């Protein structure tokens, strides 16, 4: 008894042991539910597996060979790129313009900020359900308004050419407020003396923006760009709710395709190889963006 309580006392006063003890729960969770699955996905991608993880059959590179010839995979990848490289610039530009416009601290601007941020805290699923109805061709209120002002409206989510742009716009509508908040925090970090100095030198608003605001905001901008690209590559919720990948697979993104191969067609092995391919692309894109961000920071 004496000994154990001594042991405990020794333990609770030992920084090194307590330090490890404190990180143990988190690291256990990460090991089992993040790192192990990360490795297992790679292994799965070399197997043919049916749903409950039974019936393993080693097939080597077969899944990857199949992937290269799978036009549905390439289509989903194309859609994912389309989504990412249209929606991310739109999200960032809109957020940046709004940030600059409401930067000054007034009651009016604070109210606008609260409103713009509102969609960012809401569930993308619920938002998508609401927009699906608003955009409906027959009973949707948007097309009713458009027809009132003489615009011949399309069936936004059912027209192959319009479905993806519509999904993108809903994404931008939801996300720009999120980016705005980050930009506002970034702007606050710029020392006001720079602007005072610029004013004394007679630099106008536009010059101040390009010579002070933009370069100083570059790290924040780069961070937002990289995280937005990573998130957009994984777009799922709005597509799943609004179009289920349709019409004619025009909005099927890669994560949607992984989901449908794994949990609707029960091909876990093949789905793992698709997931790996997308992961690799995300990794390469992030590295390239990080490198170019470093370079642009050095050049300023």
């Amino acid at each position, binding site marked *: 008894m004496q000994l154990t309580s001594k042991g405990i*006392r020794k333990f*609770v006063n*030992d920084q*090194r042991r*307590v*330090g490890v003890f*404190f*990180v143990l*729960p*988190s*690291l256990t*969770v*990460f090991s089992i539910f*993040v*790192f*192990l*699955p990360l490795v*297992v*996905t790679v292994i*799965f991608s070399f197997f043919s597996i049916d749903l*409950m993880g039974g019936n393993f059959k080693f097939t080597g590179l077969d899944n990857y060979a199949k992937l290269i010839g799978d036009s549905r995979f390439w289509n989903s990848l194309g859609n994912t790129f389309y989504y990412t490289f249209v929606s991310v610039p739109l999200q960032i530009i809109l957020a940046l313009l*709004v940030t600059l*416009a*409401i930067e000054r601290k007034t009651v009016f601007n604070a109210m*606008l900020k609260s*409103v713009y941020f*509102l969609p960012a*805290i809401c*569930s*993308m*699923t*619920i938002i998508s*359900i*609401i927009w*699906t*109805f*608003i955009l409906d061709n027959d*009973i949707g*209120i948007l097309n009713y308004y458009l027809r009132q002002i003489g615009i011949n409206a399309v069936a936004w989510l059912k027209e192959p050419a319009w479905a993806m742009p519509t999904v993108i716009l809903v994404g931008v509508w939801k996300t720009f407020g999120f980016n705005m*908040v*980050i*930009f*506002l925090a970034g702007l606050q970090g710029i020392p006001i003396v720079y602007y005072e100095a610029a004013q004394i030198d007679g630099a106008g608003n536009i010059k101040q923006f390009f010579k002070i605001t933009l370069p100083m905001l570059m790290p*924040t901008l*780069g*961070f*937002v760009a990289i995280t937005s690209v990573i998130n957009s*590559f*994984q777009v799922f*919720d709005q597509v*799943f*709710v609004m179009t*289920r990948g349709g019409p004619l697979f025009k909005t099927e993104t890669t*994560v949607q395709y*992984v989901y449908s191969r*794994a949990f609707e067609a029960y091909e876990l092995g093949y*789905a793992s190889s698709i*997931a790996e391919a997308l*992961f690799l692309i*995300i990794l390469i894109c992030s590295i390239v963006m990080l490198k170019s961000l470093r370079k642009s920071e050095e050049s300023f």
Partner: protein
Amino acid sequence: MQNSIALKQKLRLKQKDKIISLLIKLVLVCIAIVTIYPFVWMFFTSFKLESDVVKFPPTILPSKFVLKAYVDIWKKIPFISYYKNSIIFASGVTIISLLFDSMSGYSFARLKFKGKNILFVAVLCTLMIPFHVTMIPLFVEITRMGLLNSYAGLIIPRASNAFGIFMMRQFFITLPKDLEEAARIDGCNEFKIYRSIMLPLCKPALISLGIFHFMYNWNDLLYPMLLTTTNEMRPIPAGLALFMGAHVIEYALLMAGACLALAPIIIAYVFAQRYFIRGIAMTGLKG
């Protein structure tokens, strides 16, 4: 003469500035209307009769305010289960994750132990791993553990979060070193320092992080959808999304569901906006 022309020009310039700033304000208000409109539309539609929803021409206000959708939703879909599941899942993850994140964050910030740096890098690495790469083995694991379609299966994989650890570490690192030195001299053990001195100091950070965890899990779709197999175990987003895909759509009913799903988050946002914004702004500052 010369002077008055210059003055006039200056005045005209000022007028131009005023018009521009007015135009900008107009655009900003238009964006605000577009932002808020879907919420207003959802709110009013939830008080309509189904026949009122599909009538032509559509109107934003119901012709008669009825609570039919709010009565029907509990009967026609297992919405009470969805709600209960969302509350258990989101608050379960929030409580456990706050404990584990703050413990790890504290340890990484203030305690010295072997392998600390490598372990911290490993934690940060999990931030770079997209969910879709781990989801298939995760599903198999949870199934094999017999936790599929259970609260434990939903909560345990989310019991700690790298972003939370990072945020707590950044917070703990700013506290002055004398705090724990003094406590140690007074004979406090390491647990007591964490529990009685450090934790009370980081209440604001814990609230922001708690809101972030709750919101993230309350709103999430793919993860809870994978790990639940019956309608009775699904949280709200998964339940409503699958309901919408599988049935003849009842619009007023779904809008009532949407209202009830968004209500806790929006109400919390109205009363504690700064905590929401602080949490998000902090994610940006780590860049």
